[in-house]
């Protein structure tokens, strides 16, 4: 068993990773509540955004333009998907809506493989200016990107929480989570509220993609399927509570990284989100209702 000393740096990196998972998880929960769609292409749009940013920066464009392009791409693609397929699938089962986003995932995944081929063994990286400087806590080196990861996670969770509670649009989204038809009857512009949710979720996907490209790796496959890890956090919160999503994401990130120095478990650390989500779901679903008009656990 490694000593406490060995674990310390992994707490820091785990918190940063957890922060980004929280950002992604919260984005997915909000979209699910507002539209009933589990957005499984979250990772893919972020990954493609990050790759676009990489290409732009390599072409000599200033960094911030690349980052903006990443976020804008993710936002626009997500909004576009939501506008085209949202209404078309609005009355279908949540499962169908989720599987349809897998279609978008495959399209983006194929495009990424086609445009940014990895066959040449080319490795890409996005470096944010926050990588190079940092500070020490005790004996642990902390860089500003890690602070940014956790900070953005916290800020988004608090910000979205406040937005849902205090703004008109947020209230409308919460109403839609209750019942879309009744909300529409009450005069809420349902389509516009959904569009806002799609756009917001897409922007978060872009931010998450950029941060994960820096913190983990700029690789289409990795980034596309990291969404499953952040989805684990959202699932633990039963796609309902953003506070719980945040806590679960931090736990997933920290446990994942804390397993790194443990010799016997380090190869299995990528299982963390899956195992935690599976156990949580199974425990939470013990009391199951047979007849319910809505897709609830």
């Amino acid at each position, binding site marked *: 068993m490694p000593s406490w000393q060995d674990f310390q740096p992994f707490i820091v990196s785990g918190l940063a990773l957890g922060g980004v998972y929280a950002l992604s998880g919260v984005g997915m929960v909000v979209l699910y509540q507002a539209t009933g769609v589990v957005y499984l292409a979250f990772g893919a749009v972020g990954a493609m955004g990050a790759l676009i940013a990489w290409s732009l920066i390599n072409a000599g464009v200033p960094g911030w333009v690349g980052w903006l392009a990443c976020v804008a791409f993710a936002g626009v693609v997500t909004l576009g998907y939501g506008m085209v397929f949202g209404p078309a699938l609005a009355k279908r089962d949540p499962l169908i809506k989720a*599987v349809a986003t897998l279609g978008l995932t495959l399209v983006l995944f194929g495009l990424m493989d086609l445009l940014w081929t990895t066959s040449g063994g080319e490795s890409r990286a996005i470096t944010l200016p926050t990588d190079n400087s940092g500070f020490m806590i005790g004996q642990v080196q902390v860089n500003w990107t890690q602070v940014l990861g956790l900070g953005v996670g916290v800020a988004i969770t608090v910000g979205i929480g406040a937005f849902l509670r205090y703004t008109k649009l947020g209230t409308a989204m919460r109403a839609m989570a209750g019942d879309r038809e009744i909300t529409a009857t009450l005069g809420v512009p349902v389509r516009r509220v959904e569009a806002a949710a799609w756009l917001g979720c897409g922007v978060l996907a872009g931010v998450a993609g950029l941060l994960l490209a820096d913190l983990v790796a700029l690789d289409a496959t990795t980034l596309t399927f990291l969404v499953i890890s952040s989805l684990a956090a959202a699932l633990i919160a039963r796609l309902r509570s953003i506070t719980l999503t945040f806590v679960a994401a931090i736990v997933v990130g920290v446990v994942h990284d804390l397993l790194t120095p443990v010799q016997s478990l380090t190869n*299995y650390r990528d299982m963390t989100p899956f195992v935690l989500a599976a156990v949580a779901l199974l425990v939470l679903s013990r009391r199951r209702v047979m007849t319910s008009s809505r897709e609830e656990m």
Partner: protein
Amino acid sequence: MLDVAEAAAGARPRWPLRRPDTRTLTRAGVIGVLLAFVLFALPQLLSLYYVDAMTQVAVYSMVTLGLGVLVGRVGLVSLGQVAVLAIGAWTAARLLFATSMPYPLVLLEAGVITMVAGMVIGLPALRLRGLYLALITLMLAGAITVVLATVNFPNGGHGFLGYNGSSVHIPPIRRPGIAASDPAYFRFAVVVAALMFLLAAVHLRTRPGRAWAAIRQSEPAALAAGINTTLYKLWALALASFITGVAGGVLAGAVHYLYSIDFPTQDSITLLAVVLMGGAYSLWGAVIAALLLQLLPALLNNWGVSADWLTILFGLGVLQVLTTAPAGLADQVPKDLARLGRLLRALARRLAPSGGPE
């Protein structure tokens, strides 16, 4: 085989196993001729490259069959079938290295062990429904992929895992004695696949098939009608896992060497995509799905087109199927052909108003 769909839909009380009518007999005849063509003529006509590709089609038609039964018949969406296939392939490879049992027996054992594994994993997961079940299977597939990447596939080493990391001369996974060559192994794979389709068809035409149809329509209603929904859902899972496990066993012999990178999580997603595109409500859909999944990449590779286009196509296909054609190609193509036929007949009538066909 198409009337299986009608029987399983439970619309008419029929006893198809007792008295086959002429339509059923005709269909059986057509399938028999088709099967004979695939078994005897196809290996002669195709180059070795396409024989290999068609062997993969035979293997994956079993995988898509299992998933098709789950998705189309029972309404359970699994996003982890490639992980199940990997379990089957692992078990078969381990048994083939460790013993000198006849190959069909190994296939049976691989199927049974995969079935047990699938049921042990699936029993708790079956408490969940719809979306949550799909997502948890995705999680479990991710977990199994991680384990496989560490454990590796057996390569003739010792111990329970049978993996020797420093082995230089890795022995190939053996094939059955009568099917050592590629064309012979292709025939073997087709025969196994045909047996699996028969197994599934028998299930769909008898009591479990009707129970599944009821569950797919409405689980509470099925329960009210006295159907043990948990038993039949578990049964479906067991059947799908068994078939997929057998497919894994056939795959092991087909490729000779197995690597964990050949079973990535994203393939489970592609698998669901092609099953939906092929058509989950018909057994033909499984064949179409397997052709899409394995023959199309081989063709594209031969023409020098990147397989990424296929991924894009599958993505668009899923979106198209879910929005406009829920029964997939197996349903859409005959309908479109019929429409085309009507169109041509109308055209013929217009061109020759006096002497056109009725």
